[in-house]
């Protein structure tokens, strides 16, 4: 998993190596500083030798300056390496997601993909920077300082040898114990967010049922459990600081005791004594840092895992080896097609579909919610692969086409229409990047959208807000149809795409289709019988199976379900146009 992620470092390898390299140099300089300070005291201050003080002082300033330069360089490269790594991770994930089929997309929720691309990557970025800086720095400081202390007085150095592992172990134990509680807290946080989200979204329900107090109680409960868990986890973490202090003080006391003896015995100078104390602090601080990094890395591992899931997902639709780059015509043939969203023959959404549609025909599909209308048409542009049987377009199995060629030939207006933030023109040009303005106006006229677009003060340059919130449902649907028409498809699929359009406009759209696009195969999924009544062929779907195929009149005579739907709509009389 880690290996997979590290592949994204690429062009930032240089920075990744330079950051710790300069860090090592900085640490080396820093380690010399206490030694020089000892000399400053011993040779200068103690001997009251002003010349020595200045000489050592200049050396010290020089070294501090070097340490500063190296430190800044290391910081710069680390920032560059980690930000670059994060950028590449995001890029790789995003590119990968573009390869996902519908099947893959369904497996991740939008919000989870978004968090993975942002929060999780930031966590990994932070941890990565920590690793190439602090995780190099701390052990190095530890080793060098230890070595220097040993060099000054190996007997006193034994104190560190005992204290260091004790401190490190206890710090790690503490974070190990606290970590699962923290994880629980974050789960509870999700719960809290759910309560707030549902509350805000359902504020009209809350107010009209007068359940404010109930909501407050619900919130306070979750809020309280966060409080309890958090204080529990922090109570454990509260041991960190005192343990650290205790170690520092113990070391100090012991060094003071033994150090005095050695000074008296003349085996240790006063200057060496102070530098020993500096090394004590350096060693213990590095240990503290190490335990912090340990916590951070465990947290980042969770994020790394979630990122790897995105990168590891295998797109389940691949281009064939020798793809065909031309779709001959718009004929469609379903041969014994069965389909399951879970690739499981026991959970079929579509069962044994056999159907032949000739090029240029207009076909209507009718059926209740859950009857698999959408499922069936999504197989045509190969948004999903059939589980059993085969599906042919222009007499060739869809799996043999180049996917891009196929999807450009099969234009589909999805039930969940999406417009993107940008002008109307930009949105329409999704269908064809190179379309001229005349072509845009032409398809908009077919889709009966030109009229309302022209009425906007800025016409085709009107800016569409994210999600298309500034146009009405009917307008949005017509824009989506125009966008699909711009592809000049061999097959056009409208998945319940005119539900918000009034019946008169809808019939104008249908008229434009039959007059202007006679060659194109048109498949229309609809709720209203009136939308499909005049189709060459109407397919009635129920629970994943075809129960009837025929014209309106035939089906009224032969198909119970169709008759049922027709009558339910006639009773209201609203859409019959009588």
């Amino acid at each position: 998993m880690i290996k997979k992620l590290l592949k994204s470092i690429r062009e930032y390898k240089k920075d990744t190596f330079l950051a710790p390299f300069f860090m090592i140099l900085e640490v080396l300089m820093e380690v010399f500083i206490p030694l020089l300070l000892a000399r400053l005291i011993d040779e200068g201050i103690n001997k009251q030798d002003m010349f020595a003080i200045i000489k050592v002082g200049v050396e010290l300033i020089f070294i501090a300056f070097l340490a500063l330069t190296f430190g800044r360089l290391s910081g710069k490269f680390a920032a560059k390496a980690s930000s670059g790594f994060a950028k590449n991770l995001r890029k790789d994930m995003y590119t990968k997601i573009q390869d996902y089929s519908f099947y893959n997309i369904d497996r991740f929720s939008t919000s989870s993909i978004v968090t993975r691309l942002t929060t999780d990557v930031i966590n990994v970025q932070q941890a990565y920077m920590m690793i190439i800086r602090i995780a190099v720095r701390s052990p190095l400081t530890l080793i060098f300082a230890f070595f220097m202390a040993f060099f000054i007085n190996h007997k006193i150095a034994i104190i560190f040898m005992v204290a260091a592992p004790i401190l490190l172990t206890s710090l790690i134990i503490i974070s190990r114990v606290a970590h699962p509680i923290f994880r629980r807290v974050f789960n509870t946080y999700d719960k809290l967010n759910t309560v707030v989200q549902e509350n805000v979204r359902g504020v009209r329900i809350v107010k009209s049922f007068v359940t404010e107090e109930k909501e407050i109680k619900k919130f306070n409960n979750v809020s309280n459990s966060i409080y309890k868990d958090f204080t529990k986890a922090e109570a454990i973490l509260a041991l960190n600081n005192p343990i650290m202090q205790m170690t520092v003080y113990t070391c100090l006391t012991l060094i003071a005791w033994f150090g005095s003896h050695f000074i008296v015995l003349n085996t240790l100078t006063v200057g060496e004594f102070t530098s020993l104390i500096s090394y004590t602090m350096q060693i213990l601080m590095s240990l503290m840092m190490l335990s912090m990094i340990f916590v951070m890395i465990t947290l980042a591992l969770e994020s790394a895992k979630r990122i790897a899931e995105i990168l590891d997902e295998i797109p389940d639709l691949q281009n064939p080896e020798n793809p065909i780059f031309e779709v001959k015509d718009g004929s469609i043939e379903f041969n014994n097609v069965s389909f399951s969203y879970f690739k499981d023959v026991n959970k079929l959404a579509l069962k044994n579909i056999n159907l032949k549609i000739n090029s240029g025909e207009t076909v209507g599909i009718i059926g209740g919610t859950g009857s698999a209308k959408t499922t069936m048409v999504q197989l045509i542009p190969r948004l999903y692969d059939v589980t059993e049987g085969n599906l042919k377009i222009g007499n060739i199995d869809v799996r043999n086409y180049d996917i891009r060629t196929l999807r450009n030939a099969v234009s589909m207006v999805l039930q969940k229409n999406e417009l993107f933030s940008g002008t109307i023109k930009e949105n329409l040009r999704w269908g064809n990047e190179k379309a001229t303005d005349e072509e845009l106006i032409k398809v908009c006229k077919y889709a009966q959208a030109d009229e309302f677009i022209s009425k906007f003060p800025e016409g085709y340059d009107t800016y569409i807000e994210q999600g298309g919130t500034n146009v009405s449902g009917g307008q949005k649907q017509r824009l989506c149809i125009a966008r699909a028409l711009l592809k000049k498809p061999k097959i056009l699929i409208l998945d319940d795409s005119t539900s918000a359009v009034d019946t008169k406009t809808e019939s104008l759209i249908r008229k434009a289709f039959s007059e202007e696009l006679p060659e194109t195969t048109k498949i229309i999924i609809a709720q209203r019988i009136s939308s499909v009544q005049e189709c060459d062929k109407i397919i009635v779907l129920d629970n994943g199976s075809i129960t009837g195929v025929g014209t309106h009149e035939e089906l009224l005579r032969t198909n119970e379900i169709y008759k049922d739907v027709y009558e339910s709509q006639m009773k209201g009389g609203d859409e019959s146009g009588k």
Partner: protein
Amino acid sequence: MENSRKIDPKTLKRIFGYILKNYKIQFILVIFCVLFSSSGTVASSLFLQNLIDDYVMPMLGQTNPSFAPLLRALGFMVCIFAVAVISAYIYNRLMSKIGQGTLRDIRNEMFEKMQYLPIKYFDTHSHGDIMSHYTNDIDTLREMISRGVPQMVSLSLTLILTFLAMIKTSIHLTILVVFLLFIIINVSKSITRKSGKYFVKQQESIAKVNGYVEEMINGQKVVKVFCREDESIEAFNRLNDELCNDSTEANKYANILMPTLANLGNLQYVLIGIVGGFLAINGVGGLTIGAIVSFLNLSKSFSMPISQISQQVNLIIMALAGAKRIFTLIDEKEEEDNGYVTLVNAEIKDGKIVETDHYTGKWAWKHPHSDGSLEYVELKGHIELSNVDFSYDGKKTVLHDISLYAKPGQKIAFVGATGAGKTTITNLINRFYDIEDGKIRYDGININKIKKDDLRKSLGMVLQDVNLFTGSIKENIKYGKPDATDEEVIEAAKLANVHNFIMMLPDEYNTQIDGNGGSLSQGQKQLLSIARAALNNPPVMILDEATSSIDTRTERIVQEGMDKLMEGRTVFVIAHRLSTVRNSKAIMVLENGRIIERGDHEALIAQKGQYYQLYTGNFELE
């Protein structure tokens, strides 16, 4: 710090107000413990001075030195250290309690406050923004309170104590340190300012990437259908590169801060050594070698907190900005309610309405008059709007001169294009918004006099967007009436035609659903919301586009449930499908905030006006 002009003292004061309100004693205790724990640090520095001058130096040259005084001194130090360690533990524990407790208090107050904000607040603030108060803003505040506050207290105490100790050791050297301090502060200020600037930029770039990803991933299926993958990647890369740049700059400055401060500290060390040595050699200020050594240590303890504080400054500024947003929410004006007419259980004795304390199936408005007398008016569901004008912003009038009435049990429908004002009218009846001019009367009482809670309890609502809550089906049905019995729940479910469906679920009425309704279809969710409204048995119902997202076959089932629900009630119905409104007592056709046609179905058809156009499908509703 110098940066304090960016720190809003009012917000800071308010946060401390929360801390002191509930945790005064603990907080004082924390300060004492921090004091003890910091004095350990100072004591250890001072001790090192004494160690060399008072204990080690006298022993030098002695043939048989006695370590007994040193041992005693060490024993004393161990006691001080022990106190310091114990206080450190105590204040860490206490502070987590205070910090988390304060956060809980703020969080709870914010949510509670939010419950009583007018609908307008929710209509004018994006849900994402509201949510971020509970996530981002609280998070940064948590960082500050549970880490920043104790650290600040401890650091400033260490600072003061060290400073005092430094003065005591050598005034001359202290002056030098203070001088150097100004340099250090200025350097760190300029670095934090730069990194702060880029962190803000980074935040903005993250938001941009976030927005783009959200929009594109939401429409990912459209991207696939149109083969726009390459373009989508290209646009993403542009934003991504920008983010990378800002992030590099921000982190660069942040990374530079630590080595800069550390080495400035080293420089300070050297200067003290040189100046101290010079002073000692020339005998100025009576400096001893031990004093210099301990001063060097003190100067380290002095510059360390300063560099730590400067690292915290950005965090604190961010946290205060978050806190300010939270307080803005808390300070929002609550929904006003001057109503004094309340809804009570009632029964009729000898033709007179009498208030009772138990459920009778009958209710009455309890209307106290200014002369002290009480009047009981039976709750019937008679609603009357006369000459109502309304505007959302006080400028653009969206409803003009609306007059209509609904007698108990009548069904009144609103028809018209999006934005014509259908939903607005219903928002006025339950007082989500208040009218600008005119009057609305409920059973003859001006609704401004009725307590809002009681008014709303008497009005049931079924909306197009079904909002369910995480929990079991049963809990959802009894959402508005938590003390309902299981029998009542089942009865309501049967009325809404949803009982059979519930019985097919794995855990029947105890099946858990989440807020989105999870695996339930739109129709099933709508049926549940009808059952939920039915359980409360309100005399007046508002149905706003309740069936428009359901296919016609399912609609028939829902419609049956709805018809049963509407029986015997006053109903206001807004519908997209005209079949739903056909059998209404009166249909109001709205256009641009005015009623342009009214009458029953036959009359409106005969009129051959707008309704006729709509009905025959020659006019688009949305």
